[in-house]
């Protein structure tokens, strides 16, 4: 019998030879189908759809149970009402607009090949604190330029030591296009001068920020 995926394996061989394929073990592949529904339910649960439906359903259920104690006819009405309510909730939940989650922070990732992680994290904190007193404002500013559509701007940076000097580079990237919107760099003569250097960087990023907005930014400097 002809192998149904025979042709696929030929083209895959070419892609594999050029390192363009992903290696997914057969057992993992076969489990994706079964885990898809489970993960979908988790997503909907986390986004609040099921919680809302359960709350409304529970409220109606207990209210109807109370009515049943003094109105015998409710024994017929209640099941009908429950089914109708469940259907209505399902329809309403499906058509509710997705809750808007405004960005609350800037995602960043600083790295260094020559400095310890603690030093990198400390510098990253200094820069981020200097840049943004109210996290999210930079995203709003970038959104006005039409560069960030539903995604957060990415601030990435690197720190490298050469002798006693520390060189810092910071980039702001539009995640949708991977375009570098802004790049700035500075150096510190030693560890003690690092806070001052981070303030310089923050000021330069503020200037860029202000150029994106109609009014000057009033955050930390």
């Amino acid at each position: 019998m002809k192998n149904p995926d025979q042709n696929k394996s030929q083209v895959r061989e070419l892609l594999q030879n050029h390192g363009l394929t992903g290696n997914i073990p057969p057992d993992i592949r076969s489990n994706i189908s079964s885990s898809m529904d489970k993960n979908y339910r988790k997503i909907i649960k986390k986004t609040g759809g099921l919680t809302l439906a359960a709350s409304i359903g529970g409220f109606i259920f207990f209210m109807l149970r109370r009515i049943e104690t003094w109105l015998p006819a409710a024994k017929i009405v209640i099941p009908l009402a429950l089914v109708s309510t469940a259907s209505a909730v399902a329809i309403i939940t499906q058509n509710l607009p997705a809750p808007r989650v405004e960005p609350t922070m800037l995602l960043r990732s600083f790295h260094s090949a020559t400095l310890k992680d603690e030093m990198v994290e400390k510098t990253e904190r200094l820069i981020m604190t200097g840049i943004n007193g109210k996290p999210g404002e930079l995203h709003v500013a970038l959104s006005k330029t039409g560069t960030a559509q539903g995604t957060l701007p990415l601030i990435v940076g690197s720190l490298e030591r050469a002798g006693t000097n520390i060189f810092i580079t910071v980039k702001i990237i539009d995640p949708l296009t991977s375009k570098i919107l802004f790049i700035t760099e500075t150096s510190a003569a030693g560890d003690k001068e690092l806070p001052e250097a981070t303030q310089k960087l923050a000021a330069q990023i503020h200037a860029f920020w202000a150029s994106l907005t109609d009014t000057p930014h009033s955050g930390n400097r």
Partner: protein
Amino acid sequence: MLKRAKPSSFRNSYNEYYPLIFSMIYTKTGSREDAEDIAQEVFIRLYNNYDDVRDIRNWLFTALRFEISNYYNKKGTAKKDTVDIESLGDSAIVAIEDETPETTIIIAEILADKNNYENEEERVLFELAALYSFSFKDVAAFLGLTRWQVEYRYKKIEVKILHKLKEKGITGADDIL
């Protein structure tokens, strides 16, 4: 791409892209649990922004970079240093790096050419089958098609791609044609 009007079509997008997103993450992390968690976070983010997303594919791949970085930051593990987040570009191609040979880049560009595919579903179909070795039967189940529909479309795309490879003089394509 037209803006989607209702989040109810989120389920369709989930069915279409989940296997691809999961596979990309798994290829990078090598952990099923991590891949499921990160994929879940990516789709929660998509759900929350669904009305504003114009190009789901690009949006998902961008969100993917963030979520992998976020995930390992939250977990506080060193794993993120071993995961090449930057290579998770705007394509499902899994191994393009700075030192990639020119031939490989040409193949990747040909695969990424939208003209090979009549629609986004066909593109996902081909990527799942060709890049991640999913069987036609599995792809059919993911996309709500029959196995034969998948095989027909796959072969159609394959012919287009192989002709383009041949035009570019990519060795190895002749044997297949």
